[in-house]
């Protein structure tokens, strides 16, 4: 079976390559200066310290939402509320950071509240599912807009700074997460994010609750038969996933990138988390790598958009194709079957010799 597993990994890389190739093709069709555009897309992120920094910096929120989604998806709870949890986590952290100015305590309190609010937010679809059997996928999609509009309501009515246009009062300087690498905006959040990914891995693969969660995700009937409390799994997976996504929103808000809360649209990090969990096969340990790849692509695309006539949207297309190819089980399935058949035959003749 070994070569089949290798093949599955290879297939993932191939999906990414095919998606990139198709995007390049599109650039050639659409752009007046395709070579320049592709050069910026691919090499752009390495072109300066600032650009490299921006790759790392945009990877941070992706690790949070990606890990959160991995945990929820591992339990086969297709809860897409990471988007809203991130948003509302950012809002909660801002509120704390505006009014509570104590050194060290301010960011800690802000982040803790961001996580808790995110957890409470993401558990709503879980509770609806348990009590009314509403599909968590549908209700979590809808509830994201509650987070968005609650945020804009707060922004316009409660924390609005009359001197700024659609932005909150300034967050207190004490709450800002320190920069780690000078000349960039890479901040302490990176460490937190990596710790969260490692925590996610240990939680899913080394703890009792994580085991119950994966058991339920693979075969709920079997988990129930084994004595797993399914209700507990549904709730805990979404509480933890939501906490992590909310924490991510808080970290993002307290990073040097923002000085005020000003989100009036959804950030999209929750959606990106789906492609990340797909690439990472729901294992949080691979999430930072997937996030790095996506961040690199994003940074490259924005450099390309700034310097040439190709717009940022091209990356959305690339992402879409990657997801379709990775998820499409039939992609290269004939070749996969041949590989399996060959191994099985080899095993047969091996038995005969022995």
């Amino acid at each position, binding site marked *: 079976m070994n070569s089949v597993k290798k093949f599955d990994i290879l297939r993932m890389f191939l999906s990414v390559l095919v998606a990139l190739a198709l995007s390049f093709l599109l650039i050639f069709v659409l752009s007046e200066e395709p070579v320049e555009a592709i050069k910026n897309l691919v090499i752009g992120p390495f072109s300066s310290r600032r650009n490299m920094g921006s790759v790392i910096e945009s990877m941070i929120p992706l690790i949070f939402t990606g890990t959160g989604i991995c945990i929820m998806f591992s339990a086969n709870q297709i809860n897409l509320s990471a988007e809203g949890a991130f948003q509302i986590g950012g809002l909660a952290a801002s509120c704390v950071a505006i009014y509570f100015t104590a050194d060290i305590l301010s960011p800690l309190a802000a982040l803790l509240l961001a996580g808790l609010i995110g957890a409470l937010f993401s558990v709503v679809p879980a509770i609806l599912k348990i009590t009314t059997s509403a599909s968590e996928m549908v209700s979590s999609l809808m509830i994201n807009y509650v987070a968005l509009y609650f945020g804009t309501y707060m922004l316009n009515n409660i924390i609005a700074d009359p001197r700024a246009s659609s932005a909150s009062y300034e967050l207190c300087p004490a709450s800002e997460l320190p920069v780690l690498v000078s000349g960039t905006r890479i901040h302490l959040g990176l460490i937190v994010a990596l710790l969260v990914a490692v925590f996610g891995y240990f939680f899913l693969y*080394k*703890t*009792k609750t994580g*085991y119950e969660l*994966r058991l339920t995700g693979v075969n709920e009937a*079997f988990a129930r*038969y084994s004595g797993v409390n399914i209700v507990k799994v549904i709730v805990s997976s979404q509480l933890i996933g939501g906490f992590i996504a909310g924490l991510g929103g808080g970290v993002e808000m307290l990073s040097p990138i923002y000085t005020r809360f000003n989100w009036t649209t959804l950030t999209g990090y929750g959606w990106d988390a789906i492609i990340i969990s797909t690439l990472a096969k729901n294992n949080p340990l691979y999430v930072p790598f997937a996030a790095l790849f996506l961040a690199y692509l994003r940074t490259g695309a924005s450099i390309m958009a700034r310097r040439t006539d190709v717009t940022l949207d091209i990356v959305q297309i690339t992402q879409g194709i990657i997801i379709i190819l990775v998820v499409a089980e039939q992609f290269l399935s004939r070749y996969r*079957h041949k590989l*399996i*058949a060959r191994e099985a035959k080899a095993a047969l003749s091996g038995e005969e010799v022995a």
Partner: protein
Amino acid sequence: MLQMNHIMKIYGNGVVANEDVSLELRRGEIHALLGENGAGKSTLMKVLFGIEMPDQGEILLKGAPVTIRSPQNAISLGIGMVHQHFMLVPSLTVAENIILGVTPKKGLFIDRDKALSAAEGIAREYNFDIDVRQRVEEIPVGIKQKVEILKALYRGAEILILDEPTAVLTPQETDELFVQLVQLKKKGHTIIFISHKLDEIKKICDRATIMRNGRSMGTYEVADITTQEMSKLMVGREVSLQFEKNACRLSDQVLLRVRNLTVHNSQGVLKIDDISFDVKGGEILGIAGVEGNGQTELVDALTGLNKKYRGEISVKGKDIRPLSIAQIRDLSLAHIPEDRMASGCAGNLSIRENLFSNQYRSPEFSGKQFLKMKAIERRSDELIQEYKIKCSSRRQNVAMLSGGNIQKVIVAREFSTDPDIIIANQPTRGIDVGAAEFIRQRLLAFRDAGCAVILVSADLTEIFSLSDRLAVMYKGKFAGFFTDVANVSEEELGQHMLGIKKAEVLEGVVYE
């Protein structure tokens, strides 16, 4: 008539179901396809019926090579199949089921009169005594099977595949089926009869192709071969179905007590009708019956999977109604489920992760929050060895294993807690003889050690050879109960299974 040469079929999970199988049919014969469960009979027939594509080999129909891509394709070539699990629409009438898909039409609408007469016509032509106006949901299993056969004949089947047709039938219904099959043969139809019951094959088949481990072991004239020879070819060695069974040593304690158990399913249909019984330590209570007579519901209630029952169930004197499944398991109750893939394992997790799903909570394998991976791995390796689970490593996904080995994983897990009560639902269904024998021996060993065992099985030989007491379920009741299993004949059991004979008084069901 038909030749299948050197067929090889490998499934997507790497299981080689057919390695090198050849089959040759003559016009107008009943040809037995004989082999243990898992030998590859069903796979070969799926290849012939276009459900699976072979990885190697060729099919010749009347001398000409054909590629069969789909069941529609097979039907148009004159091949019909009656599946083990019937493919009928319960809410439609017999006639509607027969004409389904090849419906006579009047404009946009179904021509009902024509449909009815067509269905009646085909039933008459083949001497099938069926009322085609009845709804399928109202007719018994034996008739449903006849409808399936008529359906295939109506579509012009010359070659008829019957996949274990007698598995769901009582002995009486089986006899009736055989009469019909002989008639079909006389009309020139060719029948492939899949079975692993030797006496049935002796009774009606002309030739037999024997399969073992995905290979054909040759084709024989049934008249020239003894059942002993057939079973030897099938299994590869002599098997004794009689077990060395020690005398039953009952303990004093009633470990499982059931009183007035009544269960309705989610549609409100009565599935268990006021059953009471006791099981003591040191005995095996066998539960026989045609599938669907309440066995599944009984097991679900006993194991806590279904709490919507009336009556009382107590395990070791404790009422299980308020207990969670985990708490019931903690009373030292093990459960081998009926459908191993649906609820017995997590196919996409490793063997190791499947082996401790019922005991990861115990202090041996976990602390407050963390799993003790070392202990788990050590135990997994021990169990894999002890139960002779064939695998490349403990990290292999369970879905990659053969049916018998998956069952061994389940049994190893359930038995490794050293249970006091075992509820085994079809513990050896669809697995090879070696594994089945192993599991049966284990069940007996647990019984001898003072464990209370409930064995639900469709395999009568298994029921007869293991049970100390024997109940027959029919329509949610015990239609028969025997304390002296050795003196019960298969015919008698069959009559109880069919509901022809019903015991008025059930002696020895409860210990009081």
